[in-house]
């Protein structure tokens, strides 16, 4: 079992890589206990098989979303760490750095810190490689037909970007409505609906709508 921790202070992007592009935090940031633990072994075995396969990189997202969700919920992750980027930074850097380098093809020629660290706002949780997998599963799996909803969330790259990075979809009700509305839709239709949501954000209060109204608005 791995004892979960979080960095006492959020880590900074420009301190993440050495001059030759290797991932290494400058100094030894203080870590604190999260008071829960998780079993990383099943995912480690799955990842080792994945690294050997020729499947396109995004195809692993759905399965890993389920596995990360199960790993952390089985470990009883306290609710408040789900929205604490310091925990996601720790798990990304200390438990999944090899996966993140593989998934985003990060190397010394292309050292990208954000996939380890996340960033600000709604986009930050989509940028961090592990929170982007966990949060959709956490929101969708408690819904009716949650498995199908999660599968549909990951079946199109446009959905992940349009929903998880959308500031309105920080409201869980809007997040779920977007996933339901976009089931079976083409990329162009999803992009159009998201643009509409963005265009009318200052003139329509989506936060007061119920789910059916949101779906209708997104589809018309």
């Amino acid at each position: 079992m791995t004892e979960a921790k979080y960095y006492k202070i959020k880590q900074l992007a420009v301190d993440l890589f050495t001059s030759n592009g290797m991932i290494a935090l400058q100094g030894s940031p203080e870590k604190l206990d999260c008071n829960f633990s998780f079993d990383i072994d099943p995912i480690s075995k799955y990842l080792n098989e994945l690294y050997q396969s020729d499947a396109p990189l995004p195809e692993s997202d759905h399965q890993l979303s389920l596995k990360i969700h199960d790993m952390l919920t089985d470990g009883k992750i306290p609710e408040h760490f789900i929205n604490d980027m310091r925990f996601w930074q720790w798990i990304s850097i200390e438990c999944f750095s090899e996966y993140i380098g593989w998934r985003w093809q990060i190397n010394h020629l292309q050292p990208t810190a954000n996939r380890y660290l996340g960033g600000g706002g709604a986009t930050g949780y989509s940028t961090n490689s592990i929170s982007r997998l966990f949060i959709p599963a956490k929101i969708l799996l408690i819904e009716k037909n949650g498995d199908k909803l999660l599968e549909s969330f990951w079946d199109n790259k446009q959905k992940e970007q349009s929903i998880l990075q959308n500031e309105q979809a920080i409201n869980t009700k809007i997040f779920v409505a977007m996933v339901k509305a976009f089931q079976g839709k083409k990329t162009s239709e999803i992009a159009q609906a998201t643009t509409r949501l963005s265009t009318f954000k200052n003139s329509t209060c989506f936060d007061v709508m119920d789910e059916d109204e949101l779906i209708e608005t997104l589809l018309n």
Partner: protein
Amino acid sequence: MLWTYDKNTLDGEITLEISIHLHKDEDNCSFDEELVFDSRPTKPFTIKFKAYLQRNIFGTLFHPDEQNPDLNSKLVVRYVSSDSRQRGVIDLISSNADDASSKFSGIIEYDAEMTCDPITWFGKVNFEALLVRTKSAPSQDQFKTKIHDILGSSNTPLLRIDKPKEISGNYLKVKVSPTNSDYPNALYELFVESSSEIMIGLNEQAPPILLEVLTSDHQTGNKAALRTALFAPIAIDVWEQLARKAFTMMVSEDRGSDIVTIVPLDESFYPYNNIADKVAEVIYRNKSNYMTLLHDDLECDEDRDILINKKLPMAVQQLMDLTSLAAKGAELREKLK
């Protein structure tokens, strides 16, 4: 915190005030008038909202044929904290709508409250009161008639649960560095060395007298004035370069669609988050929702172009007070006579 509302100073048709009420056992935590906590609270605290709506707003927002317009709308307060992934609305309840006092003053007061457990809240929280339609009406030109239309909005108070990191005093460092072979006549080059140090490298092939002035450490006197005046355009250009980079980091364009997503920069983007914050504060004239206004400008190609090419060059001059810095150099002329 006391309510600051005074009907004589009410400057908008909808005004929102918030007050923070700490837990009785919260010992070492306080906040300032700008609603910035000096240290993170450890216990749940209550946020009380008070909103004021000018009754005559109904006469301008609803078509004259519409009966009882105040019953076809409601006032809500929307909270958004991207850092905490928390967003929602709370209904504001009128406390005096039917009172004679409200009819006399023309102002309706509303109240609401919410509890925040700091264990699940981070960074900043934006609040805004919105007057929202609750019932559709027949379509009329120049009137918003659809259910859920936003009819009006308030000022946007901002609560900072985590104090923003200050830019340190020795933020810009200067040293003489090797000439950039591609640009041998360039005087300086900007290097971002680490999260806490930005360095200006002066071309080692520049005339020694110029390097001597630019690297002098005089605090007062003519040499200090000359250095300040000569350095001013460099510092301004550096701020502009850093702000442009910050803006670029904030704009994420999805390939294959027209969607532009704005990425708010938190402290993991330091120092770019502070640079964007300071420049936006100047550009949007200290409005409390200046970062929202910056996001709106960055989201639209045309507005972004105006922001970067027109507003930014002026804002950095304002920020650095270029006129005063250049005047210090001009004053030397009198001393040289």
